[in-house]
Every structure is written in C-alpha cells, then in structure tokens.
C-alpha cells in the first residue's frame, strides 16, 4: 500500500491513484454515511478526500502512521469542514506531516504497518462498553456529550471509557517509538 502511495507521489501515476481510490473510496463513503451524510454527499466527500490524497501524496510520511490513518485524518477534516465551514484547526493533522523528514529509516514503514496491526488487534479485544464509545466517537462522529446522551450515561463515564481504551492502545504501540 505504501508503495502505491509512493507511485502516486513520485510518478503521479493515475493507475496507482485508481487503486487507492478503489481501496479507500468505499470505506471513506461508509465513514461519511455513518457520520450522517446521505449517499450523494458522501460521494462528494469521497472525491474530495481522494483528490486531497492525490495532491498531498508527497507529504505522506510513513513514520507518522499507516495510509489508512492518513486517509482517515483527511476524511475527518473534510467532514468537519463540511459540517462547519472555515473550521480553523482543520489543517493541523496534515500540516503536521509537512515537518516530515525526507529520508526515513527503512524500518519506519514496518512500524506504521505494525502499529496499525496492533491497534486493530487491541480494538477487537476491547470490552464492548469501551468499543461502543470508541465507535460512536470515531465512526459516527459523535461528541462525547452526544454519546453520553445517546447511551444515557454520565459524561464522565464516557470519557473514562475512552481513556481506558486509549491507554490500551498506547501500551500496545509503546515500544514502536
């Protein structure tokens, strides 16, 4: 996958882009719809997301996370942007990538892949009550208060479940920098 992105970045290769589109487009669409977009709006946002990937492919740095994570941050920002035009922080997580060093140690790509594998494994093993709040937050795009409302829980409980889930994630990837 990283190789695909490199072909997009270095050779501006439409075939590589198409493959990225086919892999991530339908998932970005699923994300947008879970966040409340109708199918047409979701299709729009998919196009915007993947065009941003195309434009910024050269900024992607493997040590910062997997491609899925990068695509997620772009999709998330576009979702927020659509939600509230001119939201001021929307550029941040991509901006972060601009500091990326150009010569990466060879094992960074492995780290990114390994990190994603481990994070996926931790998520799969979370207790249901933690996984529920994580899903509502990351996939449905609900604020912590909205989650509390939906699950009829105190806000503090929602936050502590998120913290517990997060700590497991941190522990699982702690040795990867």
């Amino acid at each position, binding site marked *: 996958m990283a190789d695909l992105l490199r072909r997009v*970045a270095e050779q*501006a290769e439409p075939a590589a*882009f198409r493959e990225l589109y*086919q892999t991530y*487009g*339908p*998932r970005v669409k*699923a994300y947008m719809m*879970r966040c*409340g*977009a109708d199918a047409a709006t979701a*299709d729009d946002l998919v*196009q915007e997301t*993947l*065009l941003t990937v*195309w434009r910024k492919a*050269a900024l992607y740095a493997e040590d*910062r*996370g997997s*491609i*899925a*994570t990068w*695509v*997620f941050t772009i*999709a*998330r920002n576009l979702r927020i942007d659509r*939600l*509230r*035009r*001119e*939201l001021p*922080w929307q*550029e*941040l997580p991509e*901006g*972060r990538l601009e500091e990326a060093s150009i010569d990466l140690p060879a094992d960074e790509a492995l780290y990114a892949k390994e*990190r994603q594998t481990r*994070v*996926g494994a931790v*998520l799969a093993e979370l207790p249901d009550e933690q*996984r*529920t709040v*994580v*899903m509502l*937050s*990351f*996939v449905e*795009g609900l*604020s*912590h*208060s*909205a989650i509390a409302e939906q699950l009829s829980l105190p806000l503090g409980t929602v*936050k502590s479940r*998120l*913290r517990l*889930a*997060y*700590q497991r*994630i*941190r522990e699982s990837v702690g040795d990867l920098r």
Partner: protein
Amino acid sequence: MSIVHHLDDATLMGLAAGTLTPALAVVAASHVTWCPQCRQGLAAAEAVGGALLAGLAPVPIEREPPALPVAEPEWARPQPAEATSSAGSPGAVSSSELPPPLARLVGGSLDAIRWRPLAIGIWHHRITLDGKDSGELRLIKVSRGYGLPAHGHTGAELTLVLRGAFQDEIGRFSVGDAADLDESVEHRPVADPDTGCTCVLACERPARFHGLLPRLLQPLFGL
C-alpha cells in the same frame, strides 16, 4: 518551553476523532503543535481512526474516480514535500509566538491584540468562530498577581498558557502548559507575580448532537 501539563487522554481522543467543539479543538490543536508528547499521543489516537476506517464494510461508490488530467497541470500534480509548507493557507504565519491554529485566527502576535477590560487587572479578547455551538474562545490577559475569581465549569474548559504563568490549586502552569478541566473542577487561578499571564481559553457550551444531518439514533456497534 518545558511542558508539564498535558491534554487529557479523552481530549486527545476527541481531537483525533474530530468531535471536539471548535473552540476546544483550536486550543487542543494549539497545544499539540507545541507539545511533542501530545503529538505522539495524537498519532496513536488517530491510528484508531485508521484501523476503524480500514475495517469498515465498503459502500460502493456511484461515481467514477475523479478525472485526473492526462497532462497534469501544476495544481493537480502531487507536490514535492519540500515545496509545500504554508503556501496553501492564506492566514498561515511562519514565525510566530503563537501556535499556528491560533495564529490563523488572531494573527501572529499578542502585541497586536485589541484588549478589552474585563475586571481590574484582567483583559480579554473574544475570538469569533463560525457555526452554531462552536463554544467560546477568548484570549485572557491577567496582570501580575491578579487572579480570576474561583469558578467551576458548566462544561469542559481548556486553557493554554501563551505568556507568563499562573498558579492554581492544581499547580503552576507556564507557557505551553494546558489546563484541561472538566465540569468537576473548581479553581482560582492567579497570575504569576513577576510575569503576569496571557492564555487562550476555550469553554464548551452544552453540546448538541453533532452530525452532518439529523441522525437516527442507531447504535451500530462492532468492528
């Protein structure tokens, strides 16, 4: 800058998920740009989003991929990493005493702010954010030795020190430190007697449902 007080893990998760109210997001993102530890923390939280995205059941797209011009014009061509930086965002400030997410809203320098008196020894500057339920965002400047009255919070309150320092029941907060307080905390911050203190402060309003469209209450669990 040696940062001692960091974002709460729940705040990092909210920032990564993109669900903080805009006012809180500005302050959280500002802290992150200054704090390597929270930057790493944010990357770990964002990996959750990546893993969940990769695991979503694909929904077929009803359109062709966007056309990529054969003779790629400059704008469509992936940009070399070294040639990007701040060129894209008009309000971007390259060298600034303020973190970029905040500088985009108020400019690069605190000296150019138009302060309004709030109480003796205290000035503020309200920052307008677009959109409903964006929360309150303001700069606060407190003279040496002055303090805010003891207060609690109706929602989350997030403060980032930009200049000087303050002290409260929790500890001492200097430049770069974040005071990430929830509704359970009461405190009485006092500005450092030698330096005074300038902060950016975000307060959450009671949050409403957050979504592109009014959503159905549909608990969709499981990966």
